[in-house]
């Protein structure tokens, strides 16, 4: 129904407008409807990165696109928040500064959400309270071992 869609659109849009500047340290992003009819319109993302001009997500850099998508994912997550969130290598295309802001957002959200993050990134490892190392010293057989950050580097878990 039209009202239901408008309601979802507005709720996700509002959260996206909050999340984006937290992740990028500024700027803004919002959803736009690509058509006129609420029942059939598509949705796309427009964003203005700090100091840059407004553009659609497709003209951004690899890392900028990825972090914008993360802002959208967390906005969708908040529509129906689960008690935990599993993230598989979400930080891979991000540089140092962006990973740090991303981790700060996770840290704040972790007061309500339990985050389990698979990562090769040393910054993300430093933000974790607990590090679980997976090894395959016996070929093809996975084992778990508790590690600290130096042991994680040693097992070449870092990229």
């Amino acid at each position, binding site marked *: 129904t039209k009202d239901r869609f408008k309601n*979802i659109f507005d709720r996700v849009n509002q959260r996206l407008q909050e999340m984006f500047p937290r992740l990028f340290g500024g700027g803004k992003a919002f959803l736009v409807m690509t058509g006129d009819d609420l029942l059939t319109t598509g949705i796309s993302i427009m964003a203005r990165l700090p100091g840059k001009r407004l553009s659609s997500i497709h003209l951004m850099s690899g890392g900028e696109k990825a972090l914008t998508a993360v802002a959208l994912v967390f906005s969708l997550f908040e529509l*129906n928040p689960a*008690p935990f969130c599993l993230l598989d290598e*979400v930080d891979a295309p991000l540089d140092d500064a962006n990973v740090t802001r991303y981790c700060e957002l996770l840290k704040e959200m972790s007061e309500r959400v339990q985050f*389990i993050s698979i990562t090769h990134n040393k910054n993300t490892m430093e*933000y974790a309270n607990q590090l679980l190392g997976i090894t395959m010293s016996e070929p093809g057989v996975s084992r778990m071992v508790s590690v600290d950050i130096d042991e994680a580097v040693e097992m070449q*878990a870092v990229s």
Partner: protein
Amino acid sequence: MRLNCVKLSGFKSFVDPTTFSFPSSMVGVVGPNGCGKSNIIDAVRWVMGESSRHLRGNTMEDVIFNGSSTRSPAGQASVELVFDNSQGRLGGEYAAYTEISVRRQVVRDGQSKYFLNGVQCRRKDIVSVFLGTGLGPNSYAIIEQGMISRLIDTKPDELRVYLEEAA
């Protein structure tokens, strides 16, 4: 409703019984390429009712440990999730339990079996336990490897559908 632990046995590369405990709210999972990290994500999706074809691999057989240079294939796969329900967030008949255990098991050439707190049940019982918890088929609680780049390439019509399904 925290996730207390995940237990795997015979599931993909986790041939030996392995328990992951998650006391903390910021957990990092690390290891070299191919050591099995994403297999843990597959395990959680599998036990919550995801059909095998949405995980890598097309058949039930692809989730059972299929052998290595030192081990022969396993005969079955089992994954169990244990949730803390001390805040009674899970409703229905399980509201009174402080811990909820969800388990799925499959034997080669067999069908999946599901268990809630040790009692066999149907897949739809698992799904209904999670209704209203934010976990379920359209939730954004599990962001698998590559999902972010797929989302970036999503066309406006598909993105609209994602929004509607997520609510």
